[in-house]
Each structure stands twice: as C-alpha cells, then as structure tokens.
C-alpha cells in the first residue's frame, strides 16, 4: 500500500494553487501489514495534504488507522457493515465539503500550560477544537488563531476563570500518550524513553496503556481442592464475517486454523532478536556541506575584493 500512499501524497503544488485544501481519502480493509512503513511515509511525505482513512469490515486495525489519521491530520471513519455505507460515507463527504478553519495555532500569554494534542488537525463545520492542558497555576490567556476562508481569525480565553477537573486529567494523560506514540513513530524519541513516558503517564492516571495494566485479584478459590493446574491452548475466534477457509485456504483451513496459534507461539519462542547495524554513511550530506562552505568562502573573498576595489 505504500506506493499508493506515496503516489497520492506526491503534490505537484500546481493543482488549485497554494490556497487549495488537498484532501486524500484512503480506503482499506484495514489489514495493513507494513505499519511502520506506512506511518513513516505519512510522517515524511505529508506536505500540505490531509489524509482521511476509511476502514471497511468488522475488524480493521482501528488503532493503527487512528494513528495514521492523526499523523495525516485528517480523521478516521469505520464502515462496519454494508448497511452503514451510505450513512457513514455521506457523513464523511459532507465533512470534507465544509472545511472551516485551517492552520490552527495555539499560544500562551503569561503562565505556562502543558497542552495536548501537539498535532492540531483542521476544523470542519460543526467540529469543536478540544485542547486539554495541565498546569500548576491557572493564569494568563490562551490564544487560538487560524484562518477561515483565507481570512485570519483569533480568539483569546482568560484562564483565570478556568476550573480544574480530575476527569480532564485522565483525558490529558490519554492524549499525551498519543503524542508520545506519534513522536515514537516519527523517530523523535527512542523507544525505551517512549515506553518509560507511557508507563509514567499510565501509572499517574491509572490508565491501561501498552506499558500498564489494571490487575484484579479474586481471592475466592474456584479450583476444587487437591486438583492440580493444567495448561491447554484455547481457540481464538476470528472477527465477524471472516472465515478460516478464506484465510488459510480450502480443506486444510480448519486444521491450519487449529495449528496456527500453536505454531505462531512456537515460532516466537524460536525467534532470536538481532540488532541491525547503522548502515548510513551520509557522505552525500558531507559533500553538500563541503560545497556550501567552499562557495561561501569564495563568495566572501570575491565580495571583499570587489568592495576593496571600489574603496
């Protein structure tokens, strides 16, 4: 899917002029396998495009689609069944037809506020802009600016009148975790640092994250006294509308499905991690830097000689 995404993001820049809003709709069954490549492409080649994702079927990879929509600064729509097609598509197209505010920026005047999300999407008709912030002391003014139909727009809010809420604290932590995940995808922070930050946020706000779980301990015994523990593999159901034969093919489908989990577990046990070495010399960057410095030096000498001749 990466070539398709790249082709859609390639922007000649001439279509509709610089003021035009470039909207890309990406329609998929959501069984995306090369996640990292897709996310990296979005992070790198997005430019001025806005990418909207439509996932079809009962089990698209909603987590990934949401992340891609965040990076693509668009939105994610899930069409679960054939009955929903008309309603959901109409809703999406209606939204795309009515962009309301672009280039949204938020600034603080006096006082500090830790705001999230970091990547601000465009606003469409009827959509609110929801910012969640954390601060030790409520003071100063928050200014939101953007352009509506090419005309600059700004609005300020006095934070002295704001009220704190524990519910917002949880929402803030959730969004901050999304920010951390986006940074991880774009390679802005190391994975270990990202894990640590997610764990900290999760523990502080009692959230279930990739690093933290809620554990319930039931103290009532249910296993008959004297019986020992047993271990067995339990079958996992496929998402609604998927079938084993389609996935694994023909008569052997059922057998393959029975084996799949065990085989995957066994393969995971036998896989050994292997760190891949750094394989970029970056010599092209060196060449450009050298050329730039050399030209700057020569230009400086030339300019000085000319100036000296005139004096």
């Amino acid at each position: 899917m990466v070539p398709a995404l790249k082709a859609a993001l390639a922007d000649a820049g001439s279509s509709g002029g610089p003021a035009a809003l470039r909207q890309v709709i990406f329609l998929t069954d959501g069984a995306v396998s090369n996640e990292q490549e897709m996310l990296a492409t979005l992070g790198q080649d997005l430019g001025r495009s806005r990418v909207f994702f439509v996932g079809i079927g009962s089990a698209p990879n909603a987590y990934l689609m949401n992340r891609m929509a965040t990076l693509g600064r668009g939105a994610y729509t899930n069409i679960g069944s054939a009955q929903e097609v008309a309603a959901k598509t109409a809703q999406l197209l209606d939204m795309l037809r009515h962009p309301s505010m672009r280039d949204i920026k938020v600034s603080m005047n006096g006082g500090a506020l830790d705001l999230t999300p970091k990547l601000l999407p465009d606003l469409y008709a009827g959509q609110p802009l929801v910012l969640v912030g954390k601060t030790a002391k409520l003071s100063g003014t928050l200014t939101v600016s953007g352009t509506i139909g090419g005309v600059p727009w700004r609005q300020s809010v006095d934070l002295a009148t704001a009220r704190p809420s524990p519910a917002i604290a949880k929402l803030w932590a959730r969004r901050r975790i999304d920010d951390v995940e986006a940074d991880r995808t774009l390679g802005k922070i190391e994975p270990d640092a990202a894990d640590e930050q997610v764990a900290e946020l999760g523990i502080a706000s009692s959230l279930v994250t990739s690093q933290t779980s809620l554990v319930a301990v039931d103290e009532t015994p249910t296993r008959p006294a004297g019986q020992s523990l047993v271990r067995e593999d339990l079958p996992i159901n496929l998402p609604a509308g998927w079938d084993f034969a389609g996935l694994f093919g023909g008569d052997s489908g059922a057998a393959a499905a029975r084996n799949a989990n065990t085989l995957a577990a066994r393969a995971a046990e036998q896989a050994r991690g292997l760190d891949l070495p750094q394989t970029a010399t970056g010599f092209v960057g060196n060449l450009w830097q050298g050329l730039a410095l050399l030209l700057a030096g020569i230009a400086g000498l030339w300019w000085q000689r000319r100036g000296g001749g005139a004096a």
Partner: protein
Amino acid sequence: MSRVIRQRSVARRRLVSALCITVACAGVLHLCAGTIVPAKAVVAQILLERAFERSIVAHALQKPWPWADMAPIARVSIKRLDVSRIVLDGGSGQAMAFGPTLLSGGARLGEPGVTVLAAHRDTHFRFLERVRAGDVIDVEALDGAVRHYRVTGAAVVRWDRFAVIDTPLSHLALSTCYPFGTVERGPLRYIVYADEA
C-alpha cells in the same frame, strides 16, 4: 587621522580574508571526507573481487590487502539489476566501508536458518530499493558453488525490532538503512527477504 582609519580597515579586511579562507578550507576538508567514502567503497570492491577469485583458486581465504582484518567469503549478485557485490565476514562497522558484511548473529552462508547481510544504503546496498519480489539472488560461495534465492518481499523495521527464526531451510535477509535518499541517520532498517529456490 585618515591613516588610523585606513590601518583599521586594512586590519579588518585581513581578518575577513582569513575567515573566508578558513571557511573555504573547511569546505574542502568536508568535500574530501565525503568523496573518500564512495571512493573507498568502489576501490575496495575491485580489490575484493580479485581476492575472491584468488580464494576460489586457492580453496582458502585470501586477504584483499596485506593489513586487512577481514576476507571475502561470497559473491552476491542479481542478474536483472546487473549488480554484484563481494560479501565480507564479520559485521564490524569498519568492514562495512568495503562491502556488505555477514552478521554473526544470523546463520552462516548456505546453512539452515536466516543469513543476514548488512551494507550501507548509500553505497553497496543502494540497489535494494530497486529489488522486487521474484528477483533471483545468486550467492557464490568460496568453493565455487552457486545457490539461488528468490526474493519474497521487503519490510521496514526498527533496528532493535528484528529477529531471525530457526528453520530447517536456508533464508537470506539483506539489511540497510531506511529511508533511501536521505542524509540523516535514523532508527529504521529496510530488509529484503529471500528463500532458497
């Protein structure tokens, strides 16, 4: 009075000249440092190619130059793209300046398991970008035997999220940095997978 001003302006001009010359010299140094990388990569491959031919004849590892701390162990080529590279043993960053290297964490060449070869994306493995599923990779060993691998696909992974599996078959994984065509060093790696045909 005017003499003082003139002396000052002469001193300032000399200072600016010296600065400009320093900047230009720094540029030349950078250019040299940048040119030496691809030059080393190309020249080393020529010497390695000769050492590899000698190794086949002598039935023993031959060093490409007397003070080399590595030796050629195989020739990897793809006919469709008309590329051929001599592979080195030992995956040190040092050896990688001269050619693709065999990572010691993977299987030995031609043995069951996954053999992992790594090289720089801007020199020896630049062609990986153009490799497609279905391409045939020929691996010629020191004994002259040629094994054929068929490319099954490619993936992008983080450098610390890669694993090799133990299998009874022989697989090949070619690794280089991703994305292609950029200058920055990043955490992503591009892997081309191939199965023995």
